[in-house]
């Protein structure tokens, strides 16, 4: 990241500062080449809005979400307790995540183990930043474009947030179009519950193909996502139908960053 340096909590502590927000990057956001672009977009937005934030860097670990959903509660709790120890040592109060799975786990499953934080999904925080006048979107890069939003299960049904991402799409002056299955009825991309890390069970179709068909049926210019795993699944789906030159798959954070020419 050339424009500015993203700091770690350790850097801040050494400088005697306490950042307001911890940006929880997540595994995909840290290591997956496609997801790193989303991570950078979020960092850019936070920087642009003058949010005082830092990451954990090498002190961050997997939240344990895939372990918990695979049934390995031991490993989940080990990861959770280590992470909580680190975050409590830095006196973390507020967290923003780039991934709905991290968001759900930190928000709902860490309190029972001693980790109590205010946790937000990046679309929620960005919405707040705009509402507070800390961020404005000028550029009309997406004006009039047809954008559909694929609800991540752990943001939508899992935590009842359907509006923040949609409000952001509308801020882009884009035309928000809905797939036939959306919001509470939204269809999973197929990655959750640790499925991302295994072959699908025997069936007659991949879930992401079924979901991509929903999107293709309404011919959007962009499929917007709010989860790095959904992003991978939908990108693969669009490639499967050889539509990658017609339909872009982008995270909401990327859309906001591009529109604001960040």
């Amino acid at each position: 990241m050339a424009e500015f340096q993203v700091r770690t909590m350790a850097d801040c502590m050494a400088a005697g500062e306490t950042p307001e927000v911890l940006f929880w990057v997540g595994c995909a956001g840290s290591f997956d080449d496609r997801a790193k672009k989303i991570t950078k977009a979020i960092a850019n937005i936070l920087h642009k809005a003058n949010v005082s934030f830092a990451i954990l860097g090498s002190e961050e670990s997997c939240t344990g979400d895939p372990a918990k959903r695979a049934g390995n509660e031991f490993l989940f709790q080990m990861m959770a307790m280590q992470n909580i120890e680190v975050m409590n040592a830095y006196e973390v109060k507020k967290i923003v995540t780039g991934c709905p799975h991290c968001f759900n786990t930190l928000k709902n499953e860490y309190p029972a183990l001693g980790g109590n934080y205010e946790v937000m999904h990046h679309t929620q925080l960005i919405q707040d930043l705009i509402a507070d006048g800390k961020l404005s979107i000028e550029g009309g890069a997406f004006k009039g474009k047809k954008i559909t939003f694929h609800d991540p299960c752990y943001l939508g049904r899992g935590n009842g947030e359907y509006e923040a991402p949609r409000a952001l799409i509308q801020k882009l002056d884009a035309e928000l179009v809905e797939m036939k299955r959306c919001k509470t009825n939204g269809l999973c991309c197929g990655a959750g519950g640790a499925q991302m890390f295994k072959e699908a069970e025997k069936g007659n179709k991949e879930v992401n193909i079924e979901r991509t068909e929903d999107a293709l049926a309404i011919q959007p210019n962009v499929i917007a996502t709010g989860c790095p795993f959904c992003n991978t699944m939908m990108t693969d789906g669009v490639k499967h139908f050889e539509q990658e030159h017609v339909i872009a798959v982008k995270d909401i954070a990327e859309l906001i960053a591009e529109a604001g020419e960040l």
Partner: protein
Amino acid sequence: MIGQIIFIILLSAAGYMAFKRFQFVRRNILLGRDVKIEGESSDRWGTMIRVALGQGKMFSRPIAAIFHLFLYVGFVIINIEVIEIVLDGVLGQHRLFHGIGPIYNWLMASFEVLAFLVILGCVVFLYRRNIAKLARFHWREMTNWPKSDANIILFTEIALMSAFLSMNAAESILAARGIEHYVNLGTLPISQFVTPFLDGCSDGMLIFVERFCWWFHIIGILAFIVYLSYSKHLHILLAFPNTYYSKLRPAGALDNMSNVTNEVKLMMDPAAQVVEDPLAPKKFGAKDVADLTWVQLMNAYSCTECGRCTSQCPANQTGKLLSPRKIMMDTRDRMEEVGRCMDAGVSYDNKSLLGDYITFEELWACTSCNACTEACPININPLEIIIDLRRYLMMEESQSPESITTMLTNIENNGAPWAFAQADRGNWTQE
């Protein structure tokens, strides 16, 4: 007098059979382990009123919801009439409440409208099951019994309501002919269309029809109450407690296993202070019904087998073996089996819910997306059963798909599901 004695015997026999069956169901539910009920009871009442009483989640499918509303409202209100029938039967009276005045005829008229709507609802439900063959009623787990179960109830309700209407029609004609005992019910909105069919009958025949319908109606209702407990129609009672005890936390949140917490704490720090949770289960995860909580077992008895969950399930829609409805039906079937074995004093340990009923392949097709819990009109949670069974597979039997084992090893060794070094997590900031 003989009539009274027969009636009381029938009433007591049905009461006894229903009592035994409900006791059996209750005992089976309580095989489940105890669990801490979180949240405020006012929120729980709210959920019950909205979801069960108010049928709040039914309306995502408006047609089914409206016709079900006819059945629901009709059934509940017409049962006021049953109070009169029972009192008449026991006391040897005829239309005991007729003395209350004109409101009686008004009530009878409204019961008739409801009875008609119930018949209409049943006909529509029979149609969508057997003629329109709605997909969700015809998946793999919908074998003969679940299909007949629904049809039996629908036909029975039609028969009961028709008997009620014919009884009123016969009564009206007999009253018009000035026969003693029979009361003038005024102009009845529905049974007036039945009277032309009975007009030609002799007085004796009409008296027989009236009595036959009366007995048929009450015996039918008594049989229905006993039958309920064997059937998915238990939902008409259990929908209420089931929604009351349903999860208040966000759907995405899974429970924390306190028995694991203590072990992990001691593992990380042998000197750690741990508090024993008296409700913590002995096993890690669930192998059989008794390892699930009683709320999960009540879920299984409450399921209406409507298949809304399965029709929304991404795994099922893409041809995988998993069906959340089957998870609930299996849990119920196994619970009944365990219950029967216990009563017969024979062992039920040679089988278990995990493996004999629900397979590895089904469990591992779930994406934990919560489409099933969202779709269920009575707030049943198939996902939590799936997760509990996976936990047992994973933690007690060390069974998981190979790639999952690799993923878990990566998390354990380098803090990420892939084989990347934790030290490199912040590298993106330099790229």
